[in-house]
């Protein structure tokens, strides 16, 4: 742990990533305390201040009905990060179990499971999520379902490739010889070898889930108004380009900043945990 901190802080880029991630987590957690206009989180109108460029009152300007964009971005981070955490907490274990089973058991289980994974992977991720949302109602919960459905196969494939090579390793064979159970071998022997790769992938994926979720809401298929979401804020503002540029540019940069932070940090983590790209 101390070694990890030393490596992170010896690399200015990874350190920047860590700081960004912490800042954004803090912004999301303490949004009600930090936001200058906490009520602008919902369907509030303040036409007196509508469509204002950035000022000392509204650092990032206001939207069409006068809501403070900075406050809405802070609340939108709550939604994005929350969605990311839920998706990964479901997708990573599901994919890991599938990958472990396919990789260690082999045979027809491997064939069936991995073909199933191939099926999911052969539809572009965003299109799959759009299709799932196409038949469900576009809500936050359904967006989570859609993104989870498209996400687990990537973990299955990652864990599968590691488990398959570990299957041939001496320590696994040794455990088999002394008669360890399948559950014991997969969970106690093989899984720990997959963890660094899974953790790194989860960090990097936080960024990508934010991208996908904001893409869905950009298309109007995710979080619905008046709940603030970075993607739908960009979509809304894009109609008023170039004059009301702040309505799109700041939410867009907010996405960039968050994802960039997770990517930088994930890259650093990869070095510490020694995971191949």
């Amino acid at each position, binding site marked *: 742990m101390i070694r990890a901190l030393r490596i992170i802080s010896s690399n200015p880029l990874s350190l920047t990533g860590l700081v960004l991630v912490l800042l954004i987590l803090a912004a999301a957690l303490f949004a009600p305390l930090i936001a200058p206009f906490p009520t602008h989180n919902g369907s509030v109108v303040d036409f007196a201040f509508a469509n204002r460029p950035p000022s000392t009152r509204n650092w990032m300007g206001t939207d069409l009905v006068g809501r403070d964009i900075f406050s809405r971005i802070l609340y939108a981070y709550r939604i994005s990060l929350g969605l990311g955490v839920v998706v990964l907490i479901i997708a990573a274990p599901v994919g890991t179990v599938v990958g472990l089973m396919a990789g260690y058991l082999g045979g027809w289980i491997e064939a069936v499971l991995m073909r199933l994974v191939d099926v999911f992977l052969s539809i572009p991720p965003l299109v799959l999520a759009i299709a799932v949302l196409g*038949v469900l109602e576009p809500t936050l919960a359904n967006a989570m379902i859609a993104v989870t459905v498209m996400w687990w196969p990537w973990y299955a494939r990652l864990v599968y490739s590691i488990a398959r090579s570990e299957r041939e390793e001496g320590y696994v064979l040794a455990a088999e010889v002394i008669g360890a159970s399948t559950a014991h071998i997969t969970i106690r022997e093989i899984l720990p070898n997959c963890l660094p790769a899974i953790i790194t992938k989860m960090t990097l994926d936080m960024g990508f889930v934010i991208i996908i979720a904001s*893409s869905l809401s950009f298309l109007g298929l995710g979080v619905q108004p008046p709940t603030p979401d970075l993607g739908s804020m960009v979509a809304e503002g894009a109609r008023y380009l170039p004059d009301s540029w702040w309505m799109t540019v700041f939410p867009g940069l907010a996405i960039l900043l968050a994802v960039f932070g997770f990517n930088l940090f994930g890259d650093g983590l990869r070095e510490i945990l020694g995971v191949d*790209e």
Partner: protein
Amino acid sequence: MSPVLRILSRRLGISVIVLIGVSMLIFAIARVIPGDPARIALGPNATDDQVAAIRAEMHLDEPIVAQYGYFVADVLRGDLGESLYTNRRVTTDIAEFLPATLELVIVAGFMMVAIGLPLGILAARHRGRWPDHVVRVLTLLTVSAPSFVWAVILMLLFSFYLPLFPVAGRLNDSYDIARTTGFLTVDTLLAGNFAAFIDALHHLILPAIALALSGIGQAARLTRANMVETYDKPYIEMAQAFGFFPSRIARRYAFKPSLIPSLTIIGLDFAAMLGNAFLVEAVFAWPGLSRYGVAVILRKDLNAIMGTVLVIALTFLVVNIIVDLLIAFLNPRIRHSTRATS
């Protein structure tokens, strides 16, 4: 059988299995839709008799397996049904909108390879030094924003502040070009109208860059990572020992063996652009498959949704087959193998 043919047949076999799976998946998604598909198709004002008639026509009262059978039989005949949104055959709609999307994706894919790979080579050659750090930060930035954010930023900068590129559309209305292939860059040339060709290209550049940016970043990062690994191989030291210049070693000795593992992922990235095209098309009012796709999704137009997803999955599989063949062709180990390799 030659190894390349064997790979092709193996790949085609897997693709057929995957396509069957995709069709089941799409069918399953279409059936979990809440509510009665017949009622949705007819709208709230239909009578019960009308609904019953449509239910019979859509085979909705038969067992689910039979319904799937009808669906597959229709698809195999090239019949994707009728769109409730446009009241036209779904195949007609797709034929109209797909070329615009493909044109965008192909140009973006070309940019990804033409810019991403050289950037990766540059970073790998100077690994650990400043060009590497610069490329790392830049590429990490490009992969850190969804393509619609890049689209908005590029549009703001290069269409509004610097009016260099058009804001929307594929071609100036003043040109009347016969749609032969649907690819306007090709059609304008077929029509012999060079000014229109330039105009089509002019419209294409900004959306293509927006779509390509994250792909460029990923291709560069991947190429760098694989090349850095290759640089540790003994044959690189041997090339250095024989006095080849660093630029030559980078291009000929380190890049080529690194390209093979990169290609699979680059193929996947290319295919992911089919999805991201939805976002870029929305910003640039590009009349492609996405506007159609989003419109039919919001209207719960089942036939059109299923058709669109199926066509995209098919395109995706074709891209993967091409990539696999390219790998087989580039990798002498596969091309000259006498035993089966996977």
